[in-house]
């Protein structure tokens, strides 16, 4: 037991040169077989933490051991693997507040993370995949901590407080041999930010992406104000040990440490990329009416816009607008120039500016107004 402890604790003491061997030994030491590990991430960067999850899933032999990873992130909105960010969250509000968007690899719905939200990932072999058992760790820990709180897990793998408020949501991923199940736990998150950001950006989207199911939420600290973060973490670790018959202490890990986790920074870079975050959106279409206006002549016109977006880029775009409002050639130029561009108001604005350059007078005004209307659809 003491040798096991020293193996776990020595990475904290040893210099970087030895860190590779010591941390690797955490995962790959055969003497640790049939054991478990409890890890706590030092990072609050969502991409680094998600990359760490991927790394553990890909590189650690989970047939013989299970791992609990505890982490939290600075404010970020996290969507599920097959979701559409334009329907799930308010991208322009997020841009203004500087809150990034991340797409995780597991399924499920959209969540808002901040430092008051605890994430727990339960890694196990595919045979050991048991979400209710994992949630039992959480509910039992909470019952021991604050027996007056009525917490219960549901069939849909949520955890409800007082039968009504959601304090935890779940998502998971099954790979070839391993699995991970992660869930959130609302300790003291910013609920107003949560509700203002988790609403659609574009109202006119038709898509078959996985929808989120909104639920009323609450924080643990709203009902048990004395519950401290560290207290919660300790209770969860203890219950995890109890439930799985282990005796692990929590070890801090640094997801940016390339020598302990080779390849992790590439994984984080992939998760940060536009191609992953937006480009993996399932195909969707937009169908809406644009209200156009020529202020100088006080004239109005209605046009219909139909767009198909695949992999986050405009695949096809059709604009039905009467010839006497704007020459067909110009509206066709606009739809043409959008094809292949990212579905992003900034890109559309840049394309539109290109088109406007040679125009003047009435055509300019109307084309300008049309471009603004199209940009407004996406934002």
């Amino acid at each position, binding site marked *: 037991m003491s040798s096991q402890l020293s193996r776990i604790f020595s990475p904290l003491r040893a210099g970087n040169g030895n860190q590779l061997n010591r941390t690797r030994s955490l995962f790959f030491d055969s003497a640790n077989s049939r054991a478990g590990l409890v890890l706590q991430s030092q990072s609050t960067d969502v991409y680094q933490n998600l990359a760490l999850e991927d790394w553990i899933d890909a590189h650690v032999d989970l047939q013989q051991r299970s791992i609990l990873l505890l982490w939290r992130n600075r404010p970020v909105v996290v969507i*599920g*693997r*097959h979701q559409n960010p334009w329907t799930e969250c308010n991208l322009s509000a997020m*841009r*203004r507040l*500087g809150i990034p968007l991340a797409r995780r*690899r*597991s*399924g*499920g*719905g959209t969540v808002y993370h901040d430092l008051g939200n605890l994430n727990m990932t339960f890694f196990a072999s595919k045979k050991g*995949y048991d*979400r209710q058992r994992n949630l039992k760790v959480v509910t039992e820990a909470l019952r021991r901590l604050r027996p007056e709180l009525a917490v219960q897990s549901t069939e*849909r*793998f949520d955890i409800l407080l007082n039968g009504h408020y959601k304090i935890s*949501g*779940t*998502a*998971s*991923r*099954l*790979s*070839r041999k391993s699995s991970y199940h992660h869930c959130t736990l609302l300790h003291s998150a910013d609920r107003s930010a949560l509700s203002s950001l988790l609403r659609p950006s574009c109202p006119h989207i038709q898509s*078959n*992406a*996985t929808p989120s199911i909104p639920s009323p939420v609450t924080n643990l600290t709203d009902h048990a104000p004395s519950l401290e973060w560290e207290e919660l973490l300790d209770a969860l670790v203890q219950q995890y040990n109890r439930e799985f018959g282990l005796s692990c202490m929590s070890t801090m890990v640094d997801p940016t440490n390339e020598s302990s986790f080779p390849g992790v920074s590439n994984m984080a870079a992939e998760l940060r990329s536009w191609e992953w975050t937006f480009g993996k959106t*399932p*195909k969707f279409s937009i169908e809406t009416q644009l209200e156009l206006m020529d202020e100088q002549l006080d004239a109005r016109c209605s046009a219909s816009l139909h767009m198909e977006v695949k992999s986050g880029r405009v695949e096809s775009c059709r604009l039905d607008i009467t010839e006497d409002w704007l020459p067909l050639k110009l509206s066709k*130029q606009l739809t*043409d*120039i*959008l*094809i*292949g*561009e*990212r579905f*992003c*108001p*900034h*890109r559309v*604005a*840049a*394309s*539109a*500016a*290109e*088109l*406007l*350059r*040679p125009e003047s007078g009435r055509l300019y005004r109307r084309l*300008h107004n049309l*471009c*603004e209307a199209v*940009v407004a659809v996406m934002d």
Partner: protein
Amino acid sequence: MLSRSPCVYRTLGRSLSAASQASNVVTRQHLSSHFQRKCQPRLQSSSHANHVRFFKISAVHRDEVVTVNTPAFAESVTEGDVRWEKAVGDSVTEDEVVCEIETDKTSVQVPAPAAGVLEELLVPDGGKVEGGTPLFKLRKGAAAAKPAPSPSPAVEAAAPEAVTPPPPPQPSTPPTAAPAVSAVKSSSAAAAPPAPSTAGVRGENRVKMNRMRLRIAQRLKEAQNTCAMLTTFNEVDMSNIQEMRKLYKDAFLEKHNIKLGFMSAFIKAAAHALTDQPAVNAVIDDTTKEIIYRGYIDISVAVSTPKGLVVPVIRNVETMNFADIEKAINALGEKARKNELAVEDMDGGTFTISNGGVFGSLFGTPIINPPQSAILGMHGIFDRPVAVSGKVEVRPMMFMALTYDHRLVDGREAVAFLRKIKAVVEDPRMLLLDM
């Protein structure tokens, strides 16, 4: 449920082998390994026997097509949505993820059982499937059979050549030759990719030009065809402006809360010169054959962002001082970074400044951004020995280039314009004195 009844599987297996089918049906995951071993060799030999009897023996028909089914779901879940990672025609390696099935907050990966090419996707993206539903058809074998994105035509040429020798012995010993040929084929295909590495891969990759690029290209060519474009050069001694910046940058930062750069000096100098030489700020309207002299100065600043070139515009620069210009540049930069640039921010402009110096350019001819008549290109600042009052001194020098439309701007005007910019940047006091 099917998964809990082994005897059903055995019956299924027997009926499968009995039926003469060209394709194998592989049921995943819940088949016991013992059963798999028992049933597969029979299946394979019978289908290969069919191949020999009814089909021409050639490398292409040698590939098996397997149908992969949806894996059974855990925890009594009944259905999920399919999300395709790969498309028809994509080649996959063994265990590479072909699609993911989303069931009840869980994302389940479905890997390819072997290397091959995806022949058919049997469910649309987002379609619902249950455990056992056929998902996709995979043609086993290496990618050499596929024409389009294969690394080089040389590989395709090599593969058929390699397999022509084996066919002659075929008719005499069909069952044993079958695996042999496929082995030869796969080894030739496997051999082919390594071979190019010794010779040097000579593949091509065609990417369609995106519309924005096409449009810009078209307009640049139009500009080149209509304007009589040529470039005049000059050089600027940056010592004074560098010294001014060194002296005042901290105080500037404190007062205005933004950094003092060099662009503001050049933008202001350009605005001053444009007021002096209105022809450079004007543009020819080819349709009406008129020259449009503009009373305002909107300077477009070409900025290269990771997402492509954007050209935000600073409006009415003639009314601004260095601090105002820096603030405007800063605001536009922030917007660009946050993806908030609107159409108004990028639209129009009477004159463009492009800074190639950030990339280290020494000297170059910028191209006019239509519908304008001129563009100023700034280049890198490099220490050079120059003659100052009869002596050689090392000064930080920058080459500037002005490309202009000679139909509208004369040589004399262009040179005077550039010299004015040089004078102002070398001695900003000229702005105060309106010289």
